[in-house]
């Protein structure tokens, strides 16, 4: 009686052990296979395909992460929150991001008279760039030019088609069109072809604004005829492809040529002195009559002033870090805040606990935010003083001087406000610029003391 039971028990234990060891064997086999297959060539790519879904057949992991830029996640000072709205005929979006104007009404005062005072929301992921640009209420307040497409759509092929093969000619032609006329010419938000050469996947710059902006910037530094695609290193390219759009810009002249104001340098005050010299203004402030400037997401410029840039750390290193897919290292094309992915982003270099790293970033951002608020309060006060001064008999000389100060203070403040890192990309530089902004506000208020 005893031995059949024992045999059964022994068989059961041995079977379990054999199953376990075999499972392990198969797992080891699979892990070894992972290391072999690292690329798949399913379709032939060429310079005429801008549909990411086609590229995605050859690069499924990159494509999969690229699609995830639809995610809406908040960080303390950035990211976006999915807000429901009732779709209308003019705007079919059922979900948008939170309104920055409602969060901080002082922004309305700062931008009074400009389209941004009507609708300004937190930026969403790359997937929404075209949609959010098409349906923003700003479109209803002003007639925007086709220039906007440069960074809100995949324009490489549309530019080439419009310019009959000439990228720059296409760029110039689309700049002159009204937005609504240019809109049907583009189809996708940023796609693979905008940053990659289809023949070998090398990074490349396709945006005329950056190609020309860099050429001017380098020329001012004594390097003539700089061609970013021929001269930049791979590591530089890992920032330059992002710098194609994440920069300060303006529309030059009646042809609305997109221009990056970099000939005096990349710092906020250097860019301001560029505008001071050429006299450009975005709009006339509704309350004060000041010839005002709007700063736009100068991430590339701010990053250039920071410690990470000095250490050779690029945009992609933190915003598109390597992730492991089996034995492969894949660049994460889910471009997002590094704070949502601290292990992959920060801990490559910084061997500290995730919470410690998050706290360090928040310390920098909290301080910048407080300083930004101080500068904003001061500016709003100056705008109030100026408004009053225009009706209480203050001399034109005093008002003009104060308007000039407002223009400067406002641009510098907006430079930090519009920059998407709340100071992190270059903490001390951000504080310096905010300090300068407050100084200009002070000068403006002082000018009004002399009636």
């Amino acid at each position, binding site marked *: 009686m005893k031995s059949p039971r024992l045999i059964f028990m022994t068989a059961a234990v041995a079977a379990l052990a054999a199953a376990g060891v075999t499972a392990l*064997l198969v797992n080891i086999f699979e892990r070894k296979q992972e290391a072999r297959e690292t690329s798949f060539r399913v379709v032939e790519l060429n310079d005429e395909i801008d549909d990411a879904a086609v590229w995605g057949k050859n690069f499924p992991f990159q494509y999969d992460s690229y699609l995830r830029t639809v995610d809406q996640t908040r960080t303390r000072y950035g990211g976006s929150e999915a807000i429901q709205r009732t779709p209308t005929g003019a705007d079919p979006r059922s979900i948008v991001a939170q309104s920055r104007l409602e969060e901080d009404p002082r922004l309305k005062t700062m931008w009074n008279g400009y389209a941004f005072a009507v609708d300004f929301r937190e930026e969403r992921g790359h997937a929404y760039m075209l949609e959010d640009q098409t349906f923003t209420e700003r479109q209803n307040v002003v007639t925007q030019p086709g220039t906007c497409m440069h960074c809100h759509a995949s324009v490489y092929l549309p530019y080439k088609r419009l310019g009959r093969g000439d990228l720059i000619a296409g760029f110039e032609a689309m700049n002159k069109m009204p937005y609504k006329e240019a809109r049907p010419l583009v189809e996708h938000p940023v796609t693979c072809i905008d940053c990659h050469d289809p023949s070998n996947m090398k990074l490349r710059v396709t945006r005329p604004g950056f190609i020309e902006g860099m050429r001017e910037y380098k020329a001012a530094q004594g390097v003539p005829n700089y061609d970013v695609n021929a001269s930049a290193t791979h590591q530089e390219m890992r920032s330059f492809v992002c710098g194609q759009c994440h920069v300060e810009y303006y529309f030059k002249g009646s042809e609305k040529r997109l221009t990056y104001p970099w000939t005096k340098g990349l710092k906020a005050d250097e860019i301001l002195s560029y505008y001071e010299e050429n006299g450009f203004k975005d709009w006339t402030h509704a309350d004060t009559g000041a010839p005002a400037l709007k700063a736009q997401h100068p991430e590339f410029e701010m990053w250039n002033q920071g410690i990470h840039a000095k250490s050779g750390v690029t945009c992609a290193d933190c915003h598109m870090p390597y992730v492991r897919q089996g034995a492969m290292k894949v660049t994460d094309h889910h471009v997002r805040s590094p704070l949502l992915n601290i292990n992959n982003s920060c801990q490559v270099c910084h061997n500290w606990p995730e919470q410690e790293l998050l706290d360090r970033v928040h310390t920098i951002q909290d301080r910048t935010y407080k300083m930004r608020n101080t500068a904003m309060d001061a500016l709003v006060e100056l705008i109030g003083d100026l408004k009053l001064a225009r009706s209480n008999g203050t001399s034109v000389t005093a008002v003009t001087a104060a308007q000039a100060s407002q223009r400067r203070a406002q641009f510098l403040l907006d430079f930090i406000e519009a920059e998407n890192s709340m100071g992190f990309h270059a903490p001390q530089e951000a504080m310096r610029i905010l300090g300068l902004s407050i100084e200009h506000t002070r000068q403006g208020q002082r000018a009004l003391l002399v009636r």
Partner: protein
Amino acid sequence: MTKWLVVVAVFAGLVMGIGGYTFIYAKGASYLTNDPAACANCHVMNDYYVKWQRSSHRSVAVCNDCHTPTGFLQKYMTKASNGFWHSFYFTTGNFPDNIQITPGNRTVAADACLKCHEPLTRSMSPGHDTPGSCLKCHGKIGHPQ
């Protein structure tokens, strides 16, 4: 009696056979050596292996010199424990892409500096003679970026 012994022997033999094959297929014996290439059997360690090859220590210290303690028993206990947990996490796949050293393993690595540098550090100013403090400043020495 002998009949069930035969059955047991068959089952035991089967397990040992598959187990033995798995052990060889997974290069199990290599883990008992000091060869740094063994640590990179799993491709997770490739980066660390490559960086070590570019480090100042490549010709004077292998993985085991810094990542296992002195003493035969202590060394193989550390290898066994890490071997088990590394296999466990690599098999299940539940670990961060940029792997983080455990506090225990950090202590081992921090204390290991003095194996060679103690004669020099003993005569140096405070901070250089405390066991385990080297990594505060020299943490990247074995795997420079």
